């Protein structure tokens, strides 16, 4: 990857802009948390914080796959029904038996990897627009899921899965611990490995990356596969957390995940951004959603707060990198 080396000065400025966006996003999230806690002390209680972390983890893990695909210049709109498929397939195939998870989880992850592979092949080789490919895939998965599993309500999640996700091994909920581990893996993979550098290179300029010896197609396909795996994991954890699943369980994890990465300073054009930014974005969105019930406001306000947060936060975190246009 020597050929894709960036001059030291330029690299520092790029890093510092990203770091600024991440720091700003974390700052906004923590400030919102601190102000609300000062007015409503119960917001800072252990249970409340555990609930916020649990909610943020789902957006964060779904957002991990989304961030990786966006970094390579794509987007994954098939995430809702990969999440749903993973939850439903696990519930039906395990049918409440914990020991069956030994083969059910690998099978579900395998199916997800296959979905990601198809997305990646469509985008890389057939040159489908990522929006079209993954949107079509989502409809196909939705139809297939309901045709195959829709006839009767799914059985509950195996007890093992439930206690793994909700069980308090420590004071931190299980799914938050998993998120923490995944975050470390993602940050290291994106910033310290050749794969990560190839991902950024392919996302920021595919032609240059190709001429520098990066297999843009392979990197693109790998990104869609990782994304589908993250979605499947989100589905497994949601099943464990809720204890049951239903048609549409994944619907709330597409746009919040994309909003989280945008708030965290990742550009939808590809090649620019970081996973820590997405983590910060997930924290902001979760804290905002958590504030409103505490303040006694109806659910409509949550959407309004989300919308305002997305626009304002992205205007702030992208201040230096946006191109203004004349009237």
């Amino acid at each position, binding site marked *: 990857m020597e050929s894709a080396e960036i001059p030291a000065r330029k690299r520092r400025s790029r890093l510092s802009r990203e770091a600024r966006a991440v720091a700003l996003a974390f700052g906004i999230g923590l400030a919102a948390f601190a102000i609300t806690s000062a007015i409503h002390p119960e917001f800072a209680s252990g249970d409340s914080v555990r609930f916020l972390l649990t909610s943020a983890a789902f957006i964060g893990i779904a957002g991990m796959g989304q961030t990786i695909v966006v970094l390579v210049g794509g*987007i994954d*709109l098939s995430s809702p029904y990969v999440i749903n498929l993973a939850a439903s397939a696990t519930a039906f195939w395990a049918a409440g038996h914990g020991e069956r998870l030994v083969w059910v989880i690998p099978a579900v992850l395998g199916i997800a990897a296959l979905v990601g592979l198809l997305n990646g092949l*469509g985008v890389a080789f*057939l*040159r*489908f*627009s990522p*929006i*079209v*490919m993954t*949107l*079509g*895939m*989502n*409809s*196909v*998965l*939705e*139809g*297939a899921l*309901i*045709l195959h599993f*829709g006839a009767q309500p799914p059985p509950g999640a195996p007890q093992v899965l439930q206690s793994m996700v909700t069980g308090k091994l420590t004071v931190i909920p299980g799914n938050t611990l998993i998120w923490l581990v995944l975050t470390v893996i993602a940050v290291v993979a994106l910033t310290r490995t050749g794969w990560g550098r190839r991902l950024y290179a392919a996302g920021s300029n*595919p*032609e240059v*990356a*190709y001429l520098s010896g990066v297999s*843009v197609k392979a990197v693109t396909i790998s990104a869609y596969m990782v994304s589908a795996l993250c979605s499947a994991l989100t589905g497994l954890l949601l099943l464990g957390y809720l204890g049951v699943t239903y048609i549409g369980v994944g619907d709330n994890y597409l*746009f919040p995940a*994309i*909003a989280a990465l*945008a708030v965290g300073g990742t*550009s*939808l*054009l590809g090649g620019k951004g970081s996973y820590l930014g997405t983590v910060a974005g997930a924290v902001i969105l979760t804290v905002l959603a958590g504030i409103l019930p505490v303040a006694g406001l*109806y*659910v*409509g*306000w*949550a*959407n*309004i*707060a*989300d*919308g*305002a947060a*997305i*626009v304002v936060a*992205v*205007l702030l975190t*992208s201040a230096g990198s*946006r*191109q*203004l*246009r*004349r*009237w």
Partner: protein
Amino acid sequence: MSALTVVAQRKLRIRVQSAAGLVSAGAPYVALIVLAFIYATRQPGAFSLYQLNNTTVFALPLILVSIGQTLVITTGGIDLSVGGVLALTTTLAATHFGSGGGQMVTWIVILLAGGLAIGAANGVLAGLLGLEPFIATLGTWSLCDGAALLILKVPGGSIPASWAAIAADAPLGLNVAVWAVIALIVLWVWFKRTRTGRSLVSVGSSADASFASGIALGRYYVLAYALSGLCAAVAGLYLVMQMSSGSAQVGDPYILTSVAAAVIGGSRLSGGRPRLGGTIAAAYVLTLVGSVIFVFGLNSELSTLISGLLLIAVVAVQSLGERRNGKV
């Protein structure tokens, strides 16, 4: 290689490219005709005026939203806020039209202006301030959905009978929805030829070239989003005629379906190739899929699956001849 073979090869390439262009432009119409014939095997009178009226009544909201979406896609953007504008329009109409008359007319004007204004706000964020269209309109979608939820927590409200009755009007045997589609086509044929229309198209086809020639101006982006907002508001006003009530949840299914309609219609997501006729045909296709599934007595969920496959298949056909030469 002699000069002659080079010329012959180039001629062949041009012919192949124009054939591919024909395939790309024709795909939604072929899909519509095939689907109509499949429908006709089970449904007597599938090609009757009655059936045209009936199908158009169901298709019109999607046609309207998809036309707005096509204009935004022409600039290389995307408009997720159409769902929010649609929902907000139906909730406000269902709660403020009262018993009709002057109050209703006032609110119709307010709602149309509101759709235009929300769209223009998207245009300012995405066109002038340089936010990514996906993110800017995701934000305004959420804002509008929230406002709609505050107005109507659960679907409800009511519409004066005088407004609901318009949906059933059929001057000269054609339902108002069919007249609306004809009017939209005429408007588009006119608009496409105006200086503003041509500038809007060229803004998307190559931002750099139009910037150099001085037309990549923010105002054309603002215009495209504003018209999309207006289309969504009109769709909302039409939907309340059918539902006789408002709902904060009614808009969201239209968002990605309208993108699918624009793409199946032959518009390029990267901008600059508006195919409004294709969009309308595609919106009919996506509506007819449900009817075909119904007359064949199949599980209605098949229509989601078939729509997804159709999207991928049509785009695959369209992209056949359009591969660029790059290896990346």
